[in-house]
């Protein structure tokens, strides 16, 4: 059934055992994003040093899709260069906005491809993107701050 294609095992695992869900102190930048259509919120701490994503930690209220997505995102992007990270965010975003036609490149997105099914549910795309957009915002602010 379709519900399983949306809620893949990987998603529910991340939902139940979220990674990096505890705000580390002294971030380079902290951002707070809200999904205005449902009220879900995320606070994201980015540690950015020498053009590199040193750490991503977060705290959030939200549905399983958004929580799992924050978790996957924080694992995937930690340690990446600014450029790599941005390109992965874009790749993830493209997949989510493809309405099911882009299944995602597992080598690049790793656990992130589990969200390919979400792209068939337009009302949930924002849930999956919330944390990634927060990260992008934080990264851009960090770069600006560094310059």
């Amino acid at each position, binding site marked *: 059934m379709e*519900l399983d294609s*949306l*809620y893949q095992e990987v998603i529910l695992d991340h939902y139940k055992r979220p990674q990096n869900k505890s705000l580390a102190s002294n971030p380079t930048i902290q951002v707070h994003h809200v999904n205005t259509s*449902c*009220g*879900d919120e995320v606070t994201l701490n980015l540690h950015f040093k020498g053009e590199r994503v040193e750490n991503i930690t977060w705290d959030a209220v939200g*549905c399983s899709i958004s929580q799992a997505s924050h978790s996957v995102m924080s694992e995937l992007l930690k340690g990446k260069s600014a450029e790599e990270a941005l390109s992965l965010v874009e790749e993830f975003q493209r997949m989510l906005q493809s309405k099911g036609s882009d299944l995602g490149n597992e080598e690049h997105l790793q656990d992130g491809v589990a969200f390919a099914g979400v792209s068939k*549910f337009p009302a*949930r795309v924002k849930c999956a993107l919330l944390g990634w957009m927060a990260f992008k915002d934080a990264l851009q602010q960090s770069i600006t701050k560094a310059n």
Partner: protein
Amino acid sequence: MKSALNVDQIKSEFPIFNRLVRGENRLIYLDSAATSQKPLSVLDAERDFYTKHNAAAHRGAHQLAEEATELFEGARAKVATFLNASSENEIIFTKSATESINLVAYSIGNAKPGSKFHLKAGDRIVVSEMEHHANLIPWQELAARTGAELSWFGVTDDGRLDLSNLDSLINEKTKMVALTHQSNVLGTINDFNGDLVKLRAQIKAVGALFLIDACQSVPHLKVDVQELGCDFLTFSGHKAVGPTGVGVLWGRSELLDEMPPFLTGGSMIENVTMQSATYLPAPKRFEAGVPNMAQAVGLGAALDYLDKVSLTAIHEHEVALTKQALDGLKSIRGLSIVGPTDVKNRGAVISFTVEGVHPHDLGQALDQYGIAVRTGHHCAWPLMRRFKVVATTRASFYLYNDQSDVVALVEGVDRARKYFMER
């Protein structure tokens, strides 16, 4: 339990129930508090307008224009009768309840010093914590524009208006009070003729204007504006088996005729020069432009339909379904009702949370079973904060729902809970 309504018959009059959803599921539509489905007679009334009588009402010198005018004004008469207004001139067609409330707020904001509608620093506007954003933000903006202060009634733990500070809220400073008739989240009915008669009397005693947001009541129970003793009342057609794009503002004639206009343009003027214009009395004063004629006519047909079925029977039917649903839902592990847990002064809207399952996930699962509910903050964000939840799942019933829909809801919620919690 014998139902007050013949739901099979009613369902057959709503074409949407012929479709299946998410594969082969029958449609179990429990989202009527967001928008209702439409019976064929409403769609036919609109189509009939367009295919036989379409022309600009009040503007042409020809037969079609005459007929369009008669149909449009006929719809106004139907709304007046439906609400027991004392005159058709008290009925203003807007595009939605949202526009209706903004109309009153902007009109008051346009009143000059000296006008009895003029607001200023020191005056007070009162709302409640259970208002839909549509009956909150226009008043915030009016307060900001005029310097008046915005105050509000809180909500008790069991989802009722908290009147404990009645005297400090409703006194000689209070110029405008805007309250919902039924909460679109809690289901609470504010019974201004019963439990809350003291509140109403106090509003009257201090001479404040009283607006009732009746979006969630007019479609479901008999509303009589004269009995309610308010000054303005509003609802949206689309929640009352009518078309989208039409709302109603009822107001007392003697007020409407003195209020400054809101939207300006054609058909609402008395005289126009390049420098200035003078305005017609209500309702024309508030209906600038070629009106939403087909939608008004459709709304007339919708009210005819509700009358035919009988609002008394609809309400009775909904109370029975609500009781069945409350009983069923309360038996589910981890489920909490947000709002009154019995059917006294309560409409057919039930919000709830299930521990460990986010409303979005719950709604998604229900959708997969063919059950349409709403999840989120329901345009009542302050109320969510009041109950310390981010969002709820909301099921709402109407005349086309039956006991089997309630059974499906209860089973669906339990099944979804197990899907997320027990695997």
